[in-house]
């Protein structure tokens, strides 16, 4: 209480706010004067997010050709030379037409709805283990190359803020907002069945038959 009181002394609203605290209300309506003002220069160092409309995209430019070289040295070891993935690392290309199948392959070309999702992610998290090490030009170039691997842009394409809106993602229309409260309305049921709800249950699958559970020694967290 005394700490809050001190903080409030800095404000001109003691009379209004103090009784609210005394009553234990949770949210004081007035500011507490905690925190430092963030200057534009300080914000700029961390302000790396990019939205679908290109808001936040940095200055810079990169061609598919320049991107190929960067990709081969910085990305291909995990993602494969053609974006096909090495081992269990994420696949970046191919997979078109598989989303409705029993083996959907989610890639930049088959699944991503927005250029910004690729760009923003690469900018903040890639290369894996050496995050935020690419220059803006390298970033534009390597994203352009991944787009080209997916036949979204041709080999002469140059990605920049100016050409951003020319990129059309194939699965842009593939998503819709959560509709569970409508499409799964049947799961709300005030009187669920308690007796003789179904025919006698039969076992139709066994985890042991699949045999993918780690044995205890191999599975233990290090």
């Amino acid at each position, binding site marked *: 209480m005394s700490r809050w009181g001190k903080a409030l002394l800095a404000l001109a609203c003691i009379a209004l706010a103090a009784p609210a605290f005394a009553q234990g209300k949770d949210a004081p309506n007035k500011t507490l004067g905690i925190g430092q003002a963030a200057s534009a220069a300080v914000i700029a160092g961390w302000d790396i997010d990019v939205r679908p409309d290109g808001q936040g995209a940095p200055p810079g430019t990169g061609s598919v050709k320049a991107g190929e070289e960067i990709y081969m040295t910085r990305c291909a070891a995990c993602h494969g030379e053609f974006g096909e993935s090495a081992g269990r690392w994420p696949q970046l290309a191919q997979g078109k037409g598989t989303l409705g199948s029993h083996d959907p392959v989610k890639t930049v070309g088959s699944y991503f709805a927005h250029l910004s999702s690729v760009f923003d992610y690469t900018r903040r998290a890639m290369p894996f283990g050496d995050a935020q090490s690419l220059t803006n030009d390298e970033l534009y170039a390597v994203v352009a190359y991944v787009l080209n691997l997916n036949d979204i842009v041709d080999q002469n394409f140059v990605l920049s803020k100016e050409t951003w809106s020319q990129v059309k993602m194939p699965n842009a229309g593939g998503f819709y907002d959560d509709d569970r409260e409508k499409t799964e309305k049947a799961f709300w049921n005030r009187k669920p069945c308690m007796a003789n709800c179904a025919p006698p249950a039969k076992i139709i699958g066994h985890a042991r038959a699949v045999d993918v559970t780690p044995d205890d*020694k191999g599975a233990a967290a290090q």
Partner: protein
Amino acid sequence: MRKPTDEGPTSRRRFLAGAAGLAAASASGRAAADNPKNQPPNIADWTRSLGDGVGVRAYGNPSKYEKSVIRRTVPWLTATPESSVSFTPLHELDGIITPNGLCFERHHSGIAEIDPADYRLMLHGMVDKPLIFTLDDLKRFPRVNKVYFLECAANSGMEWRGAQLNGCQYTHGMVHCVQYTGVPLKLLLAEAGVKSGASWIMAEGGDAAAMNRSLPISKALDDCLVAYRMNGEMLRPENGYPARLVVPGWEGNIWIKWLRRLKVGDAPWFTREETSKYTDLLENGKARQFTFVMDAKSIITSPSPQAPQRHKGFTVVSGLAWSGRGKVARIDVSLDGGRNWKTARIDGPVYDKACVRFYYEFDWRGEPLLLQSRAIDDTGYVQPSKADLRKIRGVNSIYHNNGIQTWHLKPDGEVENVEVG
């Protein structure tokens, strides 16, 4: 963190001893691996000699006989441990609170080790006054204590196509429930002053993935916290030390750990984590996005494949239930694979968007059983069967599998993850 060693019983050994010991235990009346010298009428070793004094265990660990109570991984799931998951040993726990060292981990680029002196939280975008907070600043705000569950959207994701992993640690262990201490996010937003027209917030981590997600500002102003403590002590590095976002009832991925930045905007960002990941692909090839809420779910933690039944007679079935839509109102248990149901007994506190503990007590005579539990929350939502869920979702959605789990309890006391139809 403790490392597993060859000393002490591992879960597997316990499992084997338990299964083999079922008959022996009932015959001899004692457990398989004990030492009569320490049992009456003899005087036990620990009664004759002094133990460690105070301060020897300056930060205490569990008994050396509890070495099997650890997080476990499924190595084949992911390419690398830095971007992977470890699972809470639900079968070894009771009550509703998960001990800090056992809370499941999900990292995208490893654990960030942040010096609290260098910790900064930036709050900017559509605000009147962009601000930077130190950790001490966050601790100066009015604080609240709230118990919430946190479930990864991919919990049970390996089970969409049928029974796969044999143990509730693996099938359901991407959930934990702790008490958070932190600042209501609305207080931080009030401090900066949200501009009119703002509708979404992007939260970003300071780890090497700089993980980012968008959430509607209505949720931020409702019940979100910036938390710095779990179960009274500072957050563990694995869980976002020194501060993380708490988004009650919503999928774990959005509870950004190592929180470094909050940006206020007027549209979602459609980050990689909310487009290419954490979207739910349906059978028609279209995907649901922004499926934030974790629906009601429950799991019988004992008996279960890693915690086999060791005796006949009076038996306590123990389980955990939670709902992202509110409070758990009721849990029903079935012994016959969902044909007939009995209402279980909830014991312990029932908090909003938190785990509850339930028990069902009965006499087991050694007959094979198909154990199930179903949670019902205070909105009237009833945890669906896997079959009912698949009818709507298909089997490709990876995320949000809250279907009813079946354990096959066999006459020898072993338990297996099975699929019933």
